[in-house]
């Protein structure tokens, strides 16, 4: 939308073709970017293309020639204002107020919370917000902005996440953070209000501010609230559960900090389904915060903070990589079978790897990766416990990078098979782009040319957790960007 707005403001008439139910969202975006009357033609999701085009090609062209109406010629300023004090009264009434909903036609008039993620919240009284603000040295009226220069790394460039050689991908310290989908900004105090509502304690606030600096899990407006991994000394300081039940209930930092992203998405970003955002059936918005158990890393394996260019002594959050992942596939994993395999060479994994009767340590990756990319493309994020990391170290993986490289190399398959997949139409830009390992156009490659299904070693990620149960959790996502928590203390 910013592009169309730029063109209209440059004096170039435009028309946008959207899909019918997106128009409310388009109108919303058009206002945010300053061209509220942008002309729109609605296409169909169900008609075949030629019949669909037949229905609207004439009005489409007329959108460039039909004289402007008085409304379309109007200019002005859109300046919605929000009061700092939203409600005054007793706590019971405040609870009712903050839990108000509105019925949204685009979701069949189902209620949608006006200020919350749908759950009850802690009421953000002035006193509670003041207490939260004591958790940082930053001023309440400071606008959330980048705390350091950020350029895509070569590794991110390889994944297509920005281009390290192109200045348009550079972001500078002090750049104001925009919360999507409404492209709003926020002050430290506004973030504190949301942190109170989520149930956070003041000592958690630097983590919350780092989440806000990362965009607050709002993404491009469909962010879902995001998922975050905390790395560094603050994991222990706050008592973030990195052990048994780390993805379960009962640990306040995991649950409350994890919830913040959803509130930032709703309140700072202005997410309102089918109104300011569309095409999210959900799956996002689930509260997610994990911590890394760096003490369990084998020698030579870096923690996430160091992997992302920070010091071992620095506390950071890593935003969910957001990349696609093969993490849903791979062999079925039974912790007990793994133990038998490593201890005495018994069980399914030992049979599969043909090491029956031979005690470990053995490399389990081939078994784990079997079928990993059967139905999905991308990298693999693994959450493993120290003893399993040590097993890999003992069989020769002296760095995390060596594991990432191994997985990457295992993912190669012939182009003829890759062509039959669901994702690559998108990843290859409709097969119009250049295949990275060959430097050739996709259409020039022979059927037997081997291409990686996992796009780059860096698209894999290992997160250490505490525990003795030999579970190997897997997902997609890979490495996200790192954001300093210490900068917000």
């Amino acid at each position, binding site marked *: *939308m910013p592009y*169309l*707005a730029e*063109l*209209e403001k440059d*004096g*170039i*008439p*435009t*028309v*946008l*073709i*959207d*899909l019918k139910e997106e128009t409310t969202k388009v109108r919303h975006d058009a*206002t*945010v970017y300053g061209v509220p*009357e942008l002309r729109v*033609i609605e*296409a169909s999701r169900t008609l075949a*293309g*030629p019949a*669909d*085009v037949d229905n609207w*090609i004439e009005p*489409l*062209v007329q959108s*460039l*020639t*039909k004289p*402007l109406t008085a409304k379309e010629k*109007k*200019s002005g300023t*859109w*300046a919605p204002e*929000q009061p700092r*004090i*939203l409600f*005054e*009264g007793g706590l*019971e009434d*405040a609870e009712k*107020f903050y839990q108000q909903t509105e019925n949204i036609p685009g979701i069949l008039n189902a209620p949608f919370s006006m*200020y919350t993620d749908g759950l009850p919240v802690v009421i*953000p009284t*002035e006193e509670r917000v003041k207490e939260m603000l004591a958790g940082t040295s930053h001023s309440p009226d400071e*606008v959330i902005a980048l705390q350091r220069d950020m350029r895509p790394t070569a590794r991110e460039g390889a994944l297509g996440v920005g281009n390290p050689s192109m200045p348009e991908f550079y972001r500078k310290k002090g750049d104001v953070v925009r*919360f999507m989908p*409404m492209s*709003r*900004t926020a002050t430290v*105090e*506004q973030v504190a*209000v949301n942190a109170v509502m989520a149930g956070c304690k003041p000592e958690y606030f630097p983590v919350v501010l780092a989440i806000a600096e990362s965009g607050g899990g709002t993404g491009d407006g469909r962010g879902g609230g995001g998922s975050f991994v905390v790395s560094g000394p603050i994991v222990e300081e706050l008592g973030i559960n990195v052990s048994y039940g780390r993805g379960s209930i009962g640990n306040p930092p995991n649950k409350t900090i994890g919830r913040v992203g959803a*509130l930032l998405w709703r*309140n*700072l*970003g*202005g997410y309102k389904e089918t109104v300011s955002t569309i095409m999210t059936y959900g799956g996002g918005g689930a509260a997610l915060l994990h911590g890394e158990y760096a003490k369990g890393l084998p020698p030579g394996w870096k923690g996430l903070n160091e992997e992302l260019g920070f010091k071992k002594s620095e506390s950071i959050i890593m935003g969910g990589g957001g990349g696609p992942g093969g993490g849903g596939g791979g062999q079925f994993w039974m912790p007990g079978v793994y133990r038998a395999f490593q201890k005495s060479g018994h069980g399914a994994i030992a049979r599969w790897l043909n090491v029956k009767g031979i005690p470990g340590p053995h490399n389990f990756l081939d078994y784990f990766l079997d079928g990993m990319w059967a139905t999905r493309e991308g990298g693999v994020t693994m959450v493993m416990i120290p003893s399993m990391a040590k097993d890999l170290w003992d069989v020769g993986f002296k760095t995390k990078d060596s594991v990432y490289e191994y997985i990457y190399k295992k993912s190669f398959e012939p182009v003829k098979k890759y062509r039959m997949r669901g994702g690559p139409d998108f990843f*290859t*830009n409709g097969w119009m782009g250049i295949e990275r390992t060959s430097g050739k156009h996709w259409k020039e490659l022979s059927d037997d040319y081997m291409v990686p299904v996992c796009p780059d070693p860096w698209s894999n990620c290992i997160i250490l957790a505490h525990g003795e149960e030999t579970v190997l959790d897997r997902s997609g996502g890979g490495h996200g960007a790192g954001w300093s928590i210490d900068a917000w203390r």
Partner: protein
Amino acid sequence: MPAAKSKVYKCLNPIGTQEPVELSALAPRLKSIDGKTIHLSICGEPDITIPLEKRLKSDYPDVNWTVKKTYNINPIRLSEEERKTTDGVILGVCW
């Protein structure tokens, strides 16, 4: 408890700051597209955009059509130089 019930609290607003936006009129429209350079910016939905490109070129042969296409959701932008010689833009289906 009754005292707590009657206490009046000031409760803060969790909503972010919407900076003022200068609203612009739409660009003046063309008298006709004949003889003009019209740019078709294609992003996504090839089932729609392939027949659209064909129809535009066959139904409006007097237009100088320029096209940039991507399968992805972000349109490929016209350069500053290209904008100087472009009279109109049709963009779809993502924005």
